[in-house]
């Protein structure tokens, strides 16, 4: 099962290495990592998307992460109401004539063209990972030259729904 785990950490060199090393050593498969500063100086937030076999393994992962001296808080937010976004840059084979056609494809995704050259177009899209996958699928026939993705970053929504509503959110994230 795919889990979204966030960690608040002290901003210290080597912390990312310590956490990813821990995951590698304990055979957790990391799908994506994103790291950035938070509202508090000296504290960063990491968002991991990890493929995990079972709940016992999941518990072990969160405990091991939390055990690290520089880790302040670990949360598995997969089953919560969350806002999760990823940014992708996609460079597609193109020529001047194709721009309008492209615009038609990317508009429903609220993506934008951020660079145009003689033989390529660069598109920026943000959203949930499945939305990005969908756009990439649509663009693939045109010939994708390059993709750069940030990995998912996420946090809890301001308000958490009642327990009964949780399923829909976790289904959305799968």
């Amino acid at each position, binding site marked *: 099962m795919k889990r979204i785990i966030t960690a608040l*950490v*002290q901003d210290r*060199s*080597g912390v990312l*290495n*310590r956490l990813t*090393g*821990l995951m590698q*050593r304990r055979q957790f498969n990391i799908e994506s990592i994103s790291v950035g500063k938070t509202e508090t100086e000296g504290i960063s937030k990491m968002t991991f998307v990890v493929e995990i076999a079972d709940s*016992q393994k999941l*518990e*072990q992962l969160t*405990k*091991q992460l*939390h*055990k*690290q*001296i*520089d*880790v*302040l808080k670990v949360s598995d937010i997969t089953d919560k109401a969350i806002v999760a976004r990823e940014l992708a840059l996609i460079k597609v084979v193109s020529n001047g004539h194709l721009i309008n056609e492209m615009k038609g494809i990317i508009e429903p995704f609220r993506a934008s063209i951020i660079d145009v050259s003689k033989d390529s177009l660069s598109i920026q899209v943000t959203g949930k990972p499945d939305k990005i996958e969908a756009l990439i699928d649509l663009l693939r026939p045109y010939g994708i030259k390059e993709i750069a993705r940030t990995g998912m970053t996420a946090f809890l929504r301001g308000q958490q729904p009642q327990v009964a509503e949780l399923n829909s959110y976790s289904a959305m994230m799968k």
Partner: protein
Amino acid sequence: MNLDAKAGREAVVQTKTGADLLIQTLVEEKVDTIFGYPGGAVLPIYDAIYRAEDEFSHILTRHEQGAIHAAEGYARVSGKPGVVIATSGPGATNLITGIADAMMDSLPLVVFTGQVARTVVGTDAFQEADVMGITTPITKQNYQVQDVRDLPRIVKEAFHIASTGRPGPVVVDVPKDISANMCDDHYDASFYLPGYQPTIKPNPLQVKKLADALAQSKKPVILAGAGVIHGKASQELRAFAEHHSLPVTTTLLGLGCFPGKSPLSLGMAGMHGTYTANMALYECDLLINVGARFDDRLTGNLKHFAPNATVAHIDIDPAEIGKNVTTHIPIVSDAKEALAELNRQAAKHPNHTEWMEKLNNNKKSYPLWYNKPDQEMCPQWLMEKVHEMTNGEAIVTTDVGQHQMWAAQYYSFNEPNRWVTSGGLGTMGFGFPAAIGAQLAKPDRTVVAIVGDGGFQMTMQELSVLQERGLPVKVIIVNNEALGMVRQWQEAFYDKRYSESLLGCQPDFVKLAESYYLKAMKVDSQKELVQVLPEVFAYDGPVVLDARVLQAENVYPMIAPGKGLHEMIGVRP
């Protein structure tokens, strides 16, 4: 003009080097013994040690591995963090085995490694190694000092982290310019570690659950690990077990946390544990684990581990709870606090007499056994003799292998902090230097290093330290001219194909020790041993005893790899 004036001002204030500051902080931390080995990148630190030589003693080992194992022995016996200094590059990498060993066995160490100057870090400079990268997976925490103003804080954090919660090794990598440059006399050393708040006191509700489970239980058993020793909880454990007449088995590293001679003791559990202990773990309906981490050498095949038991696990490290064995009653706590709370809460629990009878019958019917020949020396018998001779009160250190298991089985431990062995990592070469550290921590105690002929040859250069420091360590080489445990496994599981496990060419250990100006003896038979042993322990100085034991002897009973606790082999009535 301005520049000159400024330089003059600084010269007045800055009277110390970073190394002086480091040493000053160590003195503030009440460090009395440092194990180490100098080299280029730590020359400023060694110069500062030279200036501060009245403050503590520095033990110069002959290899960095010797230094760190000695520090582990020191830490294990004194309960204080062992302090190690090594130079950059090869000095640091020679420490890796010991750091990993301390991590596995939760020993507090503060390790200082030199590093090349910050100006050349990352350029593959002479004697540069990525100590942060290498030690990250085997340390509780590690640091590279980037600013001398952080040095006192980092050192204090290192000692705090190493010695609190679940103890462990902390590495502080010190670039040469940090230790060499002049700096101010004092910097703020206060620290705040919001991400590190070990849970010391148990949740009383969880303890209540355990007390209730105990009241229901017909077949309870306590499994006591090294957490009891680290938590100084032996008294509380004893009170708990004796009040309820609960049987107690210990892990390899837990030996001594509960008196081996107590009628409630089932002996050690695990791969080479007693039949009684392992069957108790297999058949129990309530397993109370205090400070053991369910290592695979203890549990055997997890499918058959305590299959019918409610499992309660007391551990200061929450990540250990539920890691290997499904736990029904988790209690995150220091062992002492948890047991004290349990002693307050649990009502007397007498309703398991049948169970105790069964265990006592097992003890009588299936004791540890060995065949004692007429002349030749049995290693098991040797352990019993050493126990007799030291009244069971010596500090015993070992390497890993057959001799370790025989010592664990036949040198009965009644007190904590007297058994120093490499459990988790299983490190050959550990025992002898660890004995040096143990002797320095407890100068008045008899320290016996029981080592194999294989392991001893990995760190025997430390004989120099015995001679130089006049440490009265008794080194007993259990010499079977083989890597005994390797040979035993090849015999049992590889059809007697003794691939590279027989040590054909041995040094003359007596001459070797004598070349270090030490007293040394060799014994071949029971008769000789009985004659020599009193002399060994009466002698007021170090002795090396080359004890030639029965070569073919194996360690039994045993749980073969992949088998369950109830599938022991080599059990004899």
